[in-house]
């Protein structure tokens, strides 16, 4: 009898591990019922509501992220990083620079729906031991994901980069994935300031161009084609006249890329008006990615190694994926922005097309998809509303280039191909400026985060409430500037772990321990203080990297 029970237990255990190929349906769905269902769910597919998911959005203005509710007190301006007027030649003509001056929220947006900002997690954080959180973030929750997705015949993108949980070990010295998947890691400067490790997350970003951009015209794979096309793309996205590249055999391509009149080994490309290899005839224009471009972005905990060094954790908070499913020219984008403006003027709330397991269409050709931890820490696909909030950054702001951040901020040229490494990275100024971007940000924002709720950054880089440039001068690199202490890293990791347990990502994912003071729970478009003209700034997402970098 006992043997039978053991066998039954083993059998039921096997059943428990099997993935359900059909997501469970939440009857009479509401946002609250969805959260409860997510807490109970163990599958790789999240529960789905019994009605169209748009009908139960808890925050139909999720394109207004938590940071937009910062109390600027007519002085502190974190808004400029996202909200900018158009820059000549770019596809992004949203022109939302006025949002630095004016809240201009819809009626719905005037209430801060990011309730997690107001949750005090101090006790829960205190109850979690350092060993517990360290063990947690050192676990691998990525490797099993592809298999689990295949098990349920997932028809969205399935992660196909082996060993990504290992970080830089998954790539060669130039960033090319060791598994031959075509993914290429690049070294970029994290955008201020949610993506600074000191504010709770680390990340990495990889790019992959479509097969035609990696092969010769006869279809055979070619590293020369891929290296040259990646460099050409980088120059186009940055609007450069030439760019250094990893060595390219021009003879293999029969193209004089460096314009020196001979076919040799090119380390700089000046001929930027067309792609190479099988993609040679494909559409090309500045500030646009070609159709089929993919980005893979993993957001991770703040990893801490045995020496105390900060880096990416093995565990992933999120696996995010962007694919340019439809290419368009600049007039198309201009029309989309015009239509979006009309919709906003008409008082309509933002609307995006769900693509099922392929994510959400951001209306500008990109399919945006992702995976996030379930309550146990295993990765699962995003719900519609969780996915919906991605539109804030990947569509609805004026500073991006073809809706992206990281690639335009890659270290220029050949030096920037490789896994992200903040060590040795200089604090390059924003294009057109002279002071380091981070130093500038700290001064404009008056703190080390949008909410000015990072006391450690203030201790390190401020004196009597002002940026201390002497202190800043002591920082050797970006790593010194924006990575937290071990203690802060542990606390932030614990705070985020609480949100994972609660599965209420739709209420915000900011790893706050106690409620930040400088955030509004509601905005009055007419009465809430706004920034005066002398606190409004022009900003370019691109960076002035020194030649040596």
């Amino acid at each position, binding site marked *: 009898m006992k043997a039978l029970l053991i066998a039954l237990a083993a059998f039921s255990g096997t059943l428990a591990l099997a993935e359900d190929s059909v997501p469970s349906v939440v009857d009479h769905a509401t946002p609250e019922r969805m959260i409860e269902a997510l807490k109970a769910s163990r599958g790789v597919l999240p529960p789905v509501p019994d*009605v*169209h998911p*748009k*009908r139960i*959005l808890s925050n*139909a203005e999720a394109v207004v992220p938590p940071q937009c509710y910062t109390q600027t007190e007519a002085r502190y301006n974190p808004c400029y990083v996202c909200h900018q007027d158009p820059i000549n030649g770019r596809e992004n003509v949203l022109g939302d620079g006025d949002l630095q001056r004016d809240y201009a929220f819809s009626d719905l947006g005037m209430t801060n729906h990011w309730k997690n900002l107001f949750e005090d997690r101090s006790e829960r954080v205190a109850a979690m031991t350092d060993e517990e959180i360290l063990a947690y973030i050192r676990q691998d929750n990525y490797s099993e994901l592809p298999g689990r997705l295949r098990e349920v015949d997932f028809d969205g993108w399935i992660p196909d980069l082996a060993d990504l949980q290992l970080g830089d070990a998954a790539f060669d010295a130039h960033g090319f994935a060791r598994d031959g998947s075509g993914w290429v890691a690049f070294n970029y400067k994290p955008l201020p300031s949610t993506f600074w490790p000191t504010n709770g997350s680390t990340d990495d970003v990889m790019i992959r161009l479509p097969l035609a951009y990696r092969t010769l015209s006869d279809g055979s794979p070619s590293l020369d084609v891929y290296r040259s096309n990646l460099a050409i793309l980088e120059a186009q996205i940055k609007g450069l006249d030439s760019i250094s590249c990893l060595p390219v055999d021009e003879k293999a391509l029969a193209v004089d890329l460096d314009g020196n009149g001979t076919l040799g080994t090119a380390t700089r490309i000046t001929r930027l008006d067309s792609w190479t290899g099988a993609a040679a005839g494909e*559409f090309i224009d500045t500030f646009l990615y070609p*159709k089929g471009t993919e980005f893979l972005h993993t957001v991770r905990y703040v990893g801490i190694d045995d020496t105390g060094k900060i880096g990416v954790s093995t565990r992933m908070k999120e696996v995010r994926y962007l694919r340019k*499913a*439809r*290419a*368009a*020219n600049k*007039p*198309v984008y*201009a*029309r989309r922005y*015009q239509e979006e403006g*009309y*919709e906003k*003027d*008409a*008082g*309509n*709330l*933002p*609307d*995006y*097309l*769900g*693509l*099922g397991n*392929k994510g959400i*269409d951001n209306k500008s*050709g990109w399919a945006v998809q992702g995976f996030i931890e379930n309550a146990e820490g295993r990765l699962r696909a995003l719900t519609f509303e969780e996915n919906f909030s991605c539109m804030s950054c990947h569509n609805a702001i004026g500073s991006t280039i073809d809706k992206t951040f990281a690639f335009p901020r890659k270290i220029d040229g050949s030096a920037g191909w490789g896994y992200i490494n903040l060590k040795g990275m200089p604090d390059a100024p924003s294009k057109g400026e002279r002071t380091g971007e981070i130093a500038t940000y700290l001064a404009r924002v008056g703190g080390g985060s949008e909410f000015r709720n990072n006391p450690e950054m203030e201790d390190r880089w401020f004196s009597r409430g002002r940026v201390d440039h002497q202190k800043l001068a002591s920082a050797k690199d970006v790593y010194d500037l924006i990575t937290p202490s071990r203690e802060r890293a542990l606390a932030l990791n614990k705070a985020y772990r609480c949100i994972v347990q609660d599965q209420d990502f739709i209420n915000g994912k900011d790893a706050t321990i106690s409620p930040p003071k400088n955030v509004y729970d509601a905005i009055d478009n007419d009465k809430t203080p706004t920034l005066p003209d002398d606190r409004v700034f022009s900003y370019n997402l691109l960076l002035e990297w020194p030649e040596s970098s």
Partner: protein
Amino acid sequence: MMKRLVTRRQLALAALVAGSASTFAGTPTWFIPLTESAPVTSPVSAEELTSPWATPAGISQKNAVSLREVEDEILSYGQSIGRAANLGSNASMFDMMAYDPQGEYLFIPHETQWSAGVTRYSIYDNHAELIFQGDGNGESGDYTQDFGAFDPCRFTPNGTLFLAEEWAGTGRVLEVLNPYAPVEEIETRVLESIPNVSHEGINFSKKYKDTIYFVDEDNSGSIYKFVMSTPGDYTKGQSFVLSVDDFDGVASENWNSTANATATRTGNATWIPLTDEDGNALPGITDPFVDDFTNLSYRAGRVASDNAGGTPFGRPEDCAVSHLRNGREVLYFAATSENAVYSVEILGKRRVRGAGKVDRAIVRVFASETDTPKNLGFDATTATLNSPDNLSVDALGNVYVVEDAPNSSSTGGDIWMIRDTNSDGVAESLDHFLSIRVDGSEATGMIWNPVIPTEFAVNVQHPDSTDLANVPNGLGDAVWIFNVTNVADQKFVKRLNKAGKNRPFGE
């Protein structure tokens, strides 16, 4: 004898006036209005496939044609329909359809950013053919042989077909000279006689055989008319823009700019000439007939209007022509950004002291979200008039307005009847008529059948299901035909049928 004759004439005149009034005055509301907008449903839901609109009782809807049907090579062998490359759910964009006068064909314009064209759909043969399409080079910015965003489509008194570019291309009007011809014999011409604007509504006067009205869909857009030198010749004539006499704002600025927000934009108005009778721009007026292939956002007619002091409105969209109870012609146009529909009473040429004969009109707010009651006398609706766009007029003169977009991401857009029973150009109520529930779509092209007055057609435009990469086997853009024969108000149905016998065109 004389007395009897006079009496007969008086009776005949009275009957004419009464007949005219009954034909063109609006009717009381003939359906039980909806009380809320419809929630959207998932792509290829049962609702999308069988009944995309929530309707009042007694109104049927059936699918006439869809992308899915025509693109099925077995089901629809030899048929074709417009689908532009690389535009996802915006690849076909059925827009403001036109019936031919016999009610046998529907001409469906494609408001695609490039490869704009027109599909001819034979209702009784259930056969669709793409009879014209640009060369598609607009995708790379070359519109010399391509067209963009055909929004209006109008069957002309000459038996030809007008198509015109709205937000893409260069703002041209294209005339299909032989719209019934086999596809390979179709002939077209660009009418360089009509100013380049963002054409959204273009319509023929029913009273003046030489007049075509059109509007410019821009936040500084104005109302225009083209008066042919010879009635029936669309290639030469004089262009005018409407200027409200008391407008003291800035013509070139948006309707709601600081300078214009409080400016008067209703009341007595004058048609200001932009050209002479041969179409030559007048001194001080920019040439309004420029096809600028290098600056695709340029609309020469708009600049000319600004020169002449044309009054700006908030994105004038469709326009419709009818008559008021006083017998005068009225031009209705929807101002999308203003959430309003205007009426322009056409007065004709009037003598003005010191100015000779002046071409006059009166501009009124016909209906608006802010000022017009909704469902007056019926249960209230929670819906709002949001971005009014296409207009349609039934055989009894009732005006219907179709909203441009869904009210929100989860709620469908609506169609309203604008109740104006005394037909004075100012509505008494907006009555909630239909509400679409297809995700990602808007309703477009509502038009009443010129032969079967109880029928009208409406499109589902750019639903999610047009993008087959996302929704395999999706229904896509589709035309639906409605019939009101079975509504409870049979008196209305009888009147509609009777009035329809004398009605020359579906509207």
